[in-house]
Protein backbone atom coordinates (compact mmCIF):
# COMPACT_ATOMS: atom_id res chain seq x y z
CA UNK A 1 0.00 0.00 0.00
CA UNK A 2 1.32 3.40 -0.97
CA UNK A 3 0.19 6.80 0.33
CA UNK A 4 -0.11 9.42 -2.36
CA UNK A 5 -0.38 13.10 -1.52
CA UNK A 6 -1.25 16.10 -3.66
CA UNK A 7 -0.59 19.77 -2.97
CA UNK A 8 -1.64 23.16 -4.36
CA UNK A 9 -3.43 23.10 -7.73
CA UNK A 10 -3.00 19.33 -8.09
CA UNK A 11 -4.92 18.87 -4.85
CA UNK A 12 -7.61 21.26 -6.04
CA UNK A 13 -8.00 19.69 -9.50
CA UNK A 14 -8.18 16.16 -8.13
CA UNK A 15 -10.39 17.15 -5.22
CA UNK A 16 -8.28 15.08 -2.88
CA UNK A 17 -5.18 15.66 -0.79
CA UNK A 18 -4.38 12.07 0.03
CA UNK A 19 -5.22 8.59 -1.15
CA UNK A 20 -3.87 5.10 -0.69
CA UNK A 21 -3.25 2.87 -3.69
CA UNK A 22 -2.19 -0.71 -4.22
CA UNK A 23 0.54 -0.66 -6.84
CA UNK A 24 3.43 -2.66 -8.26
CA UNK A 25 4.99 0.46 -9.81
CA UNK A 26 8.77 0.41 -9.54
CA UNK A 27 9.42 4.07 -10.31
CA UNK A 28 7.60 7.39 -10.08
CA UNK A 29 7.04 7.24 -13.84
CA UNK A 30 5.36 3.81 -13.54
CA UNK A 31 3.09 5.23 -10.86
CA UNK A 32 2.20 8.28 -12.97
CA UNK A 33 1.23 5.94 -15.84
CA UNK A 34 -1.10 4.05 -13.51
CA UNK A 35 -2.62 7.21 -12.06
CA UNK A 36 -3.32 8.63 -15.51
CA UNK A 37 -5.67 5.67 -16.04
CA UNK A 38 -7.78 6.60 -13.01
CA UNK A 39 -9.90 9.18 -14.82
CA UNK A 40 -10.05 12.46 -16.69
CA UNK A 41 -8.95 14.66 -13.78
CA UNK A 42 -5.80 12.55 -13.39
CA UNK A 43 -5.10 12.63 -17.12
CA UNK A 44 -5.30 16.43 -17.05
CA UNK A 45 -3.17 16.83 -13.92
CA UNK A 46 -0.45 14.52 -15.21
CA UNK A 47 -0.55 15.78 -18.82
CA UNK A 48 2.55 17.98 -18.49
CA UNK A 49 5.14 16.30 -16.31
CA UNK A 50 7.50 19.27 -16.64
CA UNK A 51 5.02 21.24 -14.49
CA UNK A 52 5.10 18.71 -11.66
CA UNK A 53 7.57 17.97 -8.88
CA UNK A 54 7.68 14.83 -6.76
CA UNK A 55 8.87 13.84 -3.31
CA UNK A 56 9.38 10.21 -2.29
CA UNK A 57 9.19 9.75 1.47
CA UNK A 58 9.60 13.52 1.82
CA UNK A 59 12.77 13.77 -0.25
CA UNK A 60 12.69 15.52 -3.62
CA UNK A 61 12.95 12.98 -6.44
CA UNK A 62 12.45 12.60 -10.17
CA UNK A 63 10.48 10.44 -12.59
CA UNK A 64 13.09 7.68 -12.37
CA UNK A 65 13.20 7.57 -8.55
CA UNK A 66 12.51 4.00 -7.37
CA UNK A 67 9.43 3.61 -5.16
CA UNK A 68 9.29 -0.14 -4.50
CA UNK A 69 10.20 0.44 -0.84
CA UNK A 70 8.53 3.81 -0.48
CA UNK A 71 5.73 4.58 1.95
CA UNK A 72 4.63 7.88 0.50
CA UNK A 73 4.83 9.72 -2.82
CA UNK A 74 3.82 13.40 -3.05
CA UNK A 75 3.06 15.36 -6.22
CA UNK A 76 3.01 19.15 -6.38
CA UNK A 77 3.85 22.14 -8.60
CA UNK A 78 7.24 23.90 -8.52
CA UNK A 79 7.65 25.36 -5.04
CA UNK A 80 7.18 29.06 -4.33
CA UNK A 81 8.53 29.63 -0.85
CA UNK A 82 10.33 32.61 0.57
Amino acid at each position, binding site marked *: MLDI*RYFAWLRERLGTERETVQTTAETVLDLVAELRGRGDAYAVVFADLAAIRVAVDQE*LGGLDTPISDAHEVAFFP*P*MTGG
Partner: protein
Amino acid sequence: MTVLIQENSFDMGRVLNEFADRLSGAGAVVSFSGIVRDIATEDLRAMEIEHFPGMTERALLAIRDDAVARFFLIDALILHRFGTLTAGEAIMMVATAALHRTDAFDGAVYLMDYLKSRAPFWKKEITERGGRWVEAQERDEAALRRWSQG
Protein backbone atom coordinates in the same frame (compact mmCIF):
# COMPACT_ATOMS: atom_id res chain seq x y z
CA MET B 1 15.41 26.82 17.35
CA THR B 2 17.15 27.04 14.03
CA VAL B 3 14.02 26.31 11.97
CA LEU B 4 10.57 27.65 12.83
CA ILE B 5 7.43 26.90 10.83
CA GLN B 6 4.39 28.65 12.21
CA GLU B 7 0.98 30.06 11.37
CA ASN B 8 1.28 32.98 13.80
CA SER B 9 2.78 36.33 12.93
CA PHE B 10 6.20 37.16 14.33
CA ASP B 11 8.16 40.20 15.47
CA MET B 12 11.19 40.44 13.18
CA GLY B 13 13.14 42.70 15.55
CA ARG B 14 12.62 40.31 18.41
CA VAL B 15 13.65 37.31 16.29
CA LEU B 16 16.80 39.19 15.25
CA ASN B 17 17.65 40.14 18.84
CA GLU B 18 17.09 36.63 20.16
CA PHE B 19 19.28 35.25 17.36
CA ALA B 20 22.04 37.80 18.00
CA ASP B 21 21.93 37.41 21.80
CA ARG B 22 22.78 33.71 21.54
CA LEU B 23 25.88 34.32 19.41
CA SER B 24 29.45 34.18 20.57
CA GLY B 25 32.34 35.41 18.45
CA ALA B 26 30.33 36.67 15.48
CA GLY B 27 31.45 39.81 13.66
CA ALA B 28 28.57 40.00 11.19
CA VAL B 29 24.84 39.33 11.42
CA VAL B 30 22.55 39.51 8.37
CA SER B 31 18.77 39.23 8.33
CA PHE B 32 16.30 38.99 5.48
CA SER B 33 12.57 39.43 5.94
CA GLY B 34 10.00 38.75 3.21
CA ILE B 35 6.82 40.79 3.22
CA VAL B 36 3.52 40.19 1.37
CA ARG B 37 3.28 42.80 -1.38
CA ASP B 38 0.13 44.17 -2.90
CA ILE B 39 -0.43 43.23 -6.55
CA ALA B 40 0.10 46.06 -9.01
CA THR B 41 -3.17 45.68 -10.91
CA GLU B 42 -5.71 44.62 -8.31
CA ASP B 43 -6.32 44.43 -4.58
CA LEU B 44 -4.78 41.50 -2.83
CA ARG B 45 -7.31 40.27 -0.30
CA ALA B 46 -5.10 37.53 1.07
CA MET B 47 -2.08 35.39 0.41
CA GLU B 48 -2.61 31.73 1.29
CA ILE B 49 0.48 29.69 1.98
CA GLU B 50 0.20 25.91 1.82
CA HIS B 51 3.02 23.65 2.90
CA PHE B 52 3.87 19.98 3.40
CA PRO B 53 4.15 19.39 7.17
CA GLY B 54 6.98 17.05 7.95
CA MET B 55 8.79 17.49 4.68
CA THR B 56 8.97 21.26 5.29
CA GLU B 57 10.91 20.79 8.52
CA ARG B 58 13.30 18.31 6.87
CA ALA B 59 13.87 20.54 3.86
CA LEU B 60 14.48 23.69 5.90
CA LEU B 61 16.86 21.93 8.28
CA ALA B 62 18.83 20.52 5.34
CA ILE B 63 19.02 23.93 3.64
CA ARG B 64 20.06 25.57 6.92
CA ASP B 65 22.76 22.97 7.62
CA ASP B 66 24.08 23.23 4.04
CA ALA B 67 24.41 27.00 4.40
CA VAL B 68 26.17 26.72 7.77
CA ALA B 69 28.73 24.26 6.37
CA ARG B 70 29.26 26.04 3.07
CA PHE B 71 29.77 29.56 4.45
CA PHE B 72 31.33 28.71 7.86
CA LEU B 73 28.36 30.28 9.60
CA ILE B 74 28.39 30.54 13.37
CA ASP B 75 24.61 30.17 13.31
CA ALA B 76 21.67 30.40 10.92
CA LEU B 77 17.93 30.59 11.41
CA ILE B 78 14.92 30.11 9.11
CA LEU B 79 11.41 31.13 10.08
CA HIS B 80 8.54 30.59 7.62
CA ARG B 81 4.82 31.11 8.06
CA PHE B 82 1.91 29.21 6.48
CA GLY B 83 -1.82 29.94 6.42
CA THR B 84 -3.60 33.14 5.41
CA LEU B 85 -1.69 36.43 5.32
CA THR B 86 -2.52 39.94 4.10
CA ALA B 87 -0.47 42.62 2.33
CA GLY B 88 2.20 44.17 4.53
CA GLU B 89 2.57 41.12 6.76
CA ALA B 90 5.95 39.43 7.15
CA ILE B 91 5.93 35.93 5.58
CA MET B 92 9.34 34.69 6.51
CA MET B 93 12.78 35.58 7.80
CA VAL B 94 16.29 34.21 7.72
CA ALA B 95 19.26 35.28 9.82
CA THR B 96 22.93 34.36 9.52
CA ALA B 97 25.99 35.04 11.66
CA ALA B 98 29.63 34.74 10.62
CA LEU B 99 33.07 36.10 11.42
CA HIS B 100 33.10 38.25 8.29
CA ARG B 101 30.44 40.11 6.36
CA THR B 102 30.89 38.28 3.06
CA ASP B 103 30.02 34.89 4.53
CA ALA B 104 27.03 36.27 6.44
CA PHE B 105 25.67 37.91 3.27
CA ASP B 106 26.36 34.92 1.01
CA GLY B 107 24.81 32.56 3.54
CA ALA B 108 21.60 34.61 3.69
CA VAL B 109 21.38 34.85 -0.11
CA TYR B 110 21.92 31.08 -0.35
CA LEU B 111 19.19 30.38 2.20
CA MET B 112 16.76 32.57 0.27
CA ASP B 113 17.62 31.05 -3.10
CA TYR B 114 16.96 27.55 -1.78
CA LEU B 115 13.85 28.54 0.16
CA LYS B 116 12.31 30.00 -2.98
CA SER B 117 12.50 26.82 -5.04
CA ARG B 118 13.41 23.87 -2.82
CA ALA B 119 11.19 24.16 0.24
CA PRO B 120 7.63 22.76 -0.09
CA PHE B 121 5.61 25.96 0.15
CA TRP B 122 3.02 27.12 -2.38
CA LYS B 123 1.53 30.60 -2.48
CA LYS B 124 -1.94 31.47 -3.69
CA GLU B 125 -3.06 35.06 -4.22
CA ILE B 126 -6.70 35.79 -3.42
CA THR B 127 -8.26 38.82 -5.13
CA GLU B 128 -11.83 39.85 -5.89
CA ARG B 129 -11.53 37.79 -9.07
CA GLY B 130 -10.72 34.63 -7.14
CA GLY B 131 -7.60 32.64 -6.34
CA ARG B 132 -4.44 32.28 -8.42
CA TRP B 133 -1.48 30.05 -7.62
CA VAL B 134 1.76 31.99 -7.80
CA GLU B 135 3.96 30.53 -10.52
CA ALA B 136 7.59 29.69 -9.98
CA GLN B 137 9.97 32.10 -11.69
CA GLU B 138 12.69 31.03 -14.07
CA ARG B 139 14.92 33.67 -12.43
CA ASP B 140 14.66 31.75 -9.15
CA GLU B 141 15.96 28.59 -10.84
CA ALA B 142 18.71 30.68 -12.42
CA ALA B 143 19.63 32.02 -8.97
CA LEU B 144 19.98 28.44 -7.72
CA ARG B 145 22.24 27.42 -10.58
CA ARG B 146 24.84 30.00 -9.54
CA TRP B 147 25.61 27.96 -6.44
CA SER B 148 26.53 24.83 -8.41
CA GLN B 149 29.04 26.64 -10.62
CA GLY B 150 32.65 27.21 -9.69
